């Protein structure tokens, strides 16, 4: 009942919402009062009031947030022309009040990106986005000078998607840098970047990228609709959007592909997919996503198709190893010992002698320990993280075996599984597999191979019933498409890839003649 009452409570209007809805006044004094009220407590807001004109009789104010604009640019492009060079203008004495605003806009401000706004809401939005606002007394509009510049991370090699061969550039936290990285690779006007703003408070800039004429109109419209429907206070990363726009909210499997690599995004939009970039995030989200595509690494296309196909097959084996190896070991040890050749069975039996736990408990303990080590290794400072992981694994593993808490084969199985789970090119898919391993392990412990098979079938049913923006999640394997599958299971040679994948229903299907 309390929950219902809370739910029905109307949302409280944010302070200053009334002011934000108002239009700018022609009286600078009034505008400044409102703006000072809006910016009260914002210690980084800079308000520079000044006078200009022949007789220094025109009041004006320049506002910006410190750290978001280039100060020298504000001085050289806005303040200097108005305060010093205004007098040099030939017709200054004749300049009438009505022309003043136009003169400033057309002849004085030396800014490439110059806009206007007429509401407090827009003015504050521009300010927060890193623009400078110029208010002139007598005018109910503000000039918005795009002189954004802030210290950002330079383009570096992506940390999470490391390649031996191929481009080394990765996205940064700055949206404009990121769009430029893509634009440099697709020099066509058909490559569209639609801007959106999401987040009631964060007003995060989001860009939707696709290639017009390749991406299906219905897909683009669907992505646009889902993004426009989002009503949240802030969006700090692309992952926020994935959870909101995904179709299956209770699935552990990623329903969008996240990448730090511009080359990967370009390859995906050329298949007819849509990329979503979020300001402040070095990860770009690509939709729709299908599960078999998580086996693909961009590097596959930067090396010969034979080694690339071999590595891709290796990844598929690693996928099943990471998912099933501990479960198969537990099921075999617990229920199906007859399947193990006698010499091997004797070796395992002797190493398990004295271990106080059943195989299932032993496996769960080891898996959780491994997860602890992995997470600790990730969160530790870089200098000591790997050392802790290795030392932890070696010392704890060795000590646990010596103490008779776990058997040596179990350590080997868990270590092998851990290595296999690192082979995934897409991090979020790797996490899903890590999570799916535990219920399978439990089912193997209780029902043996039957449990594993039932668990696998339930997993398959779940995956088979999923879609990502209307595209079946197991495409192109189920529903099967021979043309598309041949570039998922192995890497097709470039000269045979005449068409784009059908599963994304591209408008133009011809990749090469």
């Amino acid at each position, binding site marked *: 009942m309390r929950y219902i009452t809370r739910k029905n409570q109307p949302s409280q209007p944010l302070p200053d919402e009334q002011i934000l809805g108002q239009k700018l006044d022609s009286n600078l004094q009034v505008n400044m009062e409102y703006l000072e009220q809006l910016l009260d407590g914002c210690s980084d807001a800079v308000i520079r009031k000044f006078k200009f004109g022949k007789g220094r009789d025109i009041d004006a104010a320049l506002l910006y947030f410190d750290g978001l604009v280039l100060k020298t640019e504000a001085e050289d492009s806005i303040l200097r022309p108005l305060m010093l060079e205004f007098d040099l203008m030939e017709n200054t004495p004749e300049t009438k009040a009505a022309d003043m605003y136009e003169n400033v806009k057309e002849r004085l401000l030396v800014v490439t990106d110059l806009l206007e706004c007429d509401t407090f809401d827009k003015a504050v939005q521009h300010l927060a986005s890193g623009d400078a606002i110029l208010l002139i007394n007598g005018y109910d509009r503000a000039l918005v000078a795009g002189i954004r510049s802030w210290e950002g991370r330079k383009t570096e090699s992506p940390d999470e998607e490391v390649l031996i061969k191929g481009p080394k550039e990765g996205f940064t936290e700055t949206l404009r840098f990121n769009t430029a990285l893509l634009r440099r690779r697709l020099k066509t006007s058909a490559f569209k970047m639609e801007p959106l703003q999401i987040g009631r408070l964060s007003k995060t800039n989001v860009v939707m990228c696709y290639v017009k004429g390749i991406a299906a109109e219905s897909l683009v419209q669907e992505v646009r609709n889902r993004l426009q429907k989002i009503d949240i206070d802030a969006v700090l990363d692309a992952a926020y959007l994935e959870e909101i726009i995904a179709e299956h909210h209770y699935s552990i499997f990623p329903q969008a592909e996240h990448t730090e690599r511009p080359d990967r995004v370009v390859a995906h939009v050329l298949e007819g997919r849509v990329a979503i970039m979020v300001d402040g995030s070095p990860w770009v989200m690509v939709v729709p996503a299908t599960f078999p595509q998580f086996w693909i690494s961009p590097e596959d296309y930067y090396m010969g198709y034979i080694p690339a196909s071999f590595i891709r097959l290796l990844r598929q084996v690693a996928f099943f190893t990471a998912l099933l190896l501990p479960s198969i070991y537990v099921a075999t040890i617990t*229920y*199906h010992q*007859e*399947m193990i*050749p006698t010499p091997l069975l004797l070796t395992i039996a002797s190493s398990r002698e004295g271990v106080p736990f059943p195989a299932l408990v032993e496996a769960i303990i080891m898996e959780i320990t491994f997860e602890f080590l992995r997470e600790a290794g990730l969160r530790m400072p870089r200098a000591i993280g790997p050392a802790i992981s290795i030392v932890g694994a070696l010392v704890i593993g060795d000590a646990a075996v010596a103490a008779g808490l776990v058997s040596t084969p179990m350590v080997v199985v868990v270590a092998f599984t851990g290595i296999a789970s690192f082979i995934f090119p897409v991090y979020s898919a790797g996490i899903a597999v890590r999570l799916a391993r535990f219920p399978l392990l439990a089912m193997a412990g209780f*029902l*043996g*191979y*039957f449990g594993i*098979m*039932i668990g696998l*079938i*339930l997993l*398959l*049913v*779940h995956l*088979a*019933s999923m*879609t990502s923006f*209307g595209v*079946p999640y*197991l495409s192109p*394997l*189920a*529903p*099967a498409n021979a043309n598309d599958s041949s570039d998922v299971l192995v890497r097709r040679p470039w000269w045979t890839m005449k068409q784009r994948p059908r599963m994304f229903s591209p408008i133009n299907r011809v990749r090469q003649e």
Partner: protein
Amino acid sequence: MNNNISGLQLYSISIFMIIATAILYEPRHMIQMVQNNAWVLPFLSGIWGLLFAGLYAQLIKSDPAGFVSLVESLVGKWAGRVIVFLYLAYTLFHCALSLRLFTDFVLSVVDVFLPVSVLTAVFLGASAWAVRRGVPAVARLSELCFWGNSLFALVILLAIARQLDWHNLLPVLPGGILPLARGAWQHAYIYGEAFWAVLLVPFIANRNKAHVPLLVSVLFSMFWLGSFTLFIIAYFNHWLAAAYTFPFFSLVRGIYLGEFIQRLDILLVTIWINNTIIKTSVLLLVFAHTAAAVVHLRDYRPLVLPGALVVGPLSILIFNNIAALQQFYDRLLYLAVLVFTVAIPLVLFLISLWRRGESHAQKTGSPTACS
């Protein structure tokens, strides 16, 4: 979500329906009947199977609205209802029987400690959940499992190939051709399992080309059943093979390769679990969908759970023990299957032909129609 079943999916579903239980019991049954020539039976009875598949393809083309509409339009509303109710009962019975066959196999050969109710509940729960996730989930599952099963079956056949003794296949036709002909007809019912596609009509993407997946599924089933039976006879000889209840399972247990790889039971168990879950899922889907069409429900999903709740106890209570099940399987099952999957569909097809001829005559104004 696209609810259509593609050609490949229809093929996968059909091959699962045909092979799922046949692979468990048929080799022994066929070997008992025609000894060392039993491997020929799947091919001979497959000729009947191809005719059945042609019949089903014609029925699929007849009415896009589905089986209920087809039957009611051909024999009238009330007679049609009776036939549909018979089919609903038969679907539940068949589902319970398939499940019982598998659980009996598991409990008698693989894992003797599990209570039958637990195994039944687990399988039924998984199948019901798959059906509730929608037709695409079942269709895609069967498509994926088809590839997995084919791969595992090939591995098994290749792994055992070195240990075969081809002399066990001799002599050829010791009892003449008559036992083969009789056996071919008696085992034709295996291919009658392709009939279930007729009850999935509203979901089939290309009804006019449904004959292709159905015919190919019969051909591939002939190949698999024939190969398995051939390998069983060649490995054991027919006297020994006929003594096993599940000779294929015993065959797989005999695999011994490179002095290391042995007893690949897991591959066979995987194949059979896939088979059972997909067959049970399709039958539950067919039941729920047909029942929904009878009571004019827009969504079949609410009827899945009641169907599963009937099938579960039925599969446990239907036979006292595996001996009773075998008696029924050997003596009566083929008759029941042939009635529901061949006789009634054939009558329906003939009525539709007659109706078509009648309406054609009315259009052309021939004297037969006037009289």
